[in-house]
């Protein structure tokens, strides 16, 4: 097994490029997502992205707001109770970003198809309605016939649809904890991260905590993402901020509204990036920017007890820095 730890700067430089098909996960609108990774993509000026995300989140909201997204496939594009995703919606209604709508179930089924290396997945949902008939890729035709084409069940003769399977070039997946090899445990709903980790051609994990592999040996049933499918591991505390990470921190209510309001305009987005995306390089600078008072509030989560079984395996900041040096060496 190889130590796959990498800095967030190196991981973004190596695993992302202009024009790529980029997938992020869990892509929850309020909870888990690899948001820190998306911010680093903004810093490195990635553009013309084809984004596959199960749901909209503050990550795709930001990427679309800065004009980096050409196309997005999504099951739900909003931020739940925090409102419509202003940056993404601005990009969609202006015509800058093409959106291909599916349902939340469909996105998971399509990752499953990609993980199986199936060319398509039978569709019993998203058919006979506008998710089948409206295609951002083929807008001139209504009803569209190529997005979820009609097929026939060879056994019963029933008409079904066919979902195109998903094989994104790279997936950046947020996990609660990972070891240096890429074994990972996720607390809270997995959403589609299990299938996504097998569907993507390359997988970068972004972990709130780095733990010793002894943790995985104690709870092997909970290790749903395995080293065998992972290419790089990035340590980034409060990775999902301003969203939540189950067991570690709640969503930052104040910042969620503030950030989404800023995404409404190009000027607001620029101002937001200047204040909240550009100023830091290291995890400690990032934490300083959020501020100790805010961090204390967010980490006083009702879900904190879920972390109790794992605490003894968590690597300290110093240990992670040493492991990162070893990986470079």
């Amino acid at each position: 097994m190889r130590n796959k730890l990498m800095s967030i700067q190196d991981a973004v430089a190596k695993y992302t490029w202009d024009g790529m098909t980029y997938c992020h996960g869990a892509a929850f609108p309020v909870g888990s997502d690899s948001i820190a990774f998306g911010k680093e993509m903004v810093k490195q000026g990635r553009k013309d992205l084809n984004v596959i995300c199960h749901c909209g989140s503050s990550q795709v909201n930001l990427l679309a707001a800065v004009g980096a997204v050409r196309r997005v496939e999504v099951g739900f594009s909003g931020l739940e109770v925090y409102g419509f995703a202003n940056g993404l919606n601005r990009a969609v209604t202006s015509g800058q970003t093409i959106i291909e709508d599916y349902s939340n179930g469909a996105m998971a089924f399509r990752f499953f198809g990609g993980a199986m290396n199936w060319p398509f997945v039978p569709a019993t949902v998203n058919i006979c309605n506008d998710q089948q008939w409206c295609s951002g890729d083929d807008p001139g035709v209504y009803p569209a016939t190529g997005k979820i084409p009609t097929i026939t069940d060879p056994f019963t003769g029933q008409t079904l649809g066919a979902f195109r399977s998903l094989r994104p070039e790279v997936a950046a997946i947020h996990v609660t904890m990972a070891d240096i090899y890429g074994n990972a445990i996720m607390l809270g709903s997995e959403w589609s991260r299990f299938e996504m980790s097998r569907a993507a051609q390359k997988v970068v994990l972004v972990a709130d905590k780095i733990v010793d592999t002894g943790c995985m040996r104690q709870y092997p049933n909970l290790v749903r993402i395995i080293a065998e499918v992972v290419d790089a591991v990035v340590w980034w505390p409060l990775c999902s901020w301003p969203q939540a990470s189950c067991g570690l921190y709640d969503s930052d209510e104040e910042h969620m509204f503030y950030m989404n309001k800023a995404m409404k305009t190009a000027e607001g987005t620029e101002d937001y990036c200047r204040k909240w995306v550009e100023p830091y390089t290291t995890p400690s600078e990032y934490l300083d920017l959020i501020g100790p008072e805010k961090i204390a509030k967010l980490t006083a989560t009702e879900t904190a007890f879920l972390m109790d079984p794992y605490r003894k395996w968590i690597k300290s900041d110093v240990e992670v820095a040493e492991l990162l040096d070893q990986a470079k060496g």
Partner: protein
Amino acid sequence: MEYTKQEFMAIVTGREIKDGQLIILGVGLSMLAGYFAQLNHAPNLMPFTEGGVYGSTPVGGLPWGIECNRISANATSFTNAIDALGFLVASGRCDNAVIGAAQVDQYGNVNTTGIWEDPPWRLGKYVPPRVRLNGSGGANDIAVGAKSYLIMASHEKRRFIEKVDYISSPGYLNGGDARQRCGFVGGGPSAIISTLGILRPDPVTKQFYLDAYFSFSSVEEIQDSTGWDLKVSPDVKVVPEPTEQELINIRTVDSTGSLRKKG
């Protein structure tokens, strides 16, 4: 006790939820109605979310999302979307659900995707919407797969329209046996609960008619607020007022008062 229209709508929706049902709940009114039912009259309700969060009740106020820590602090199981929306919902196993609607039409088709100057079905092509909403989320999977489900919507003429701009989640499509012809395993929407009354589908045509109205509303007001020729049940009823216990229970669930702020 005084109450708001939103509170009444949540209570009336909750009354449609039966004890022992396996039910999938979304954020906002959906969770409030579901957890109200559990507290009020359905102690053996089995609620879960799209993310596969099972066995939990919210702590600290209304969850910000289906995966919020407020709904994850006392779960008995965390699984995933393929389990919740696939194995339990699209498969046909789930008994009930509550979904919201920006627009709903005479056959219970729901739009949560966008608002167009000229909708794609009329224009004959797909242009970006004037207003982008959120997309279907899991509601399409629910609309196709759940044995039955409830639609909650604010009763306004711009929302209750003859034909929605975009079908995000199919009700009875163009009526009759259209769902069966599409092979949908679920039974379709059993009711639309609005801020003014309860609409139910005609057993044959599947067009929604007025079954009952709230005491502060009237048949005329509801017909005026509906964009299709709304038929009225011959034995149209007044929905029973919320009891004191129901109001206590809805306020226990809605501890942050989100329903009381909306009038």
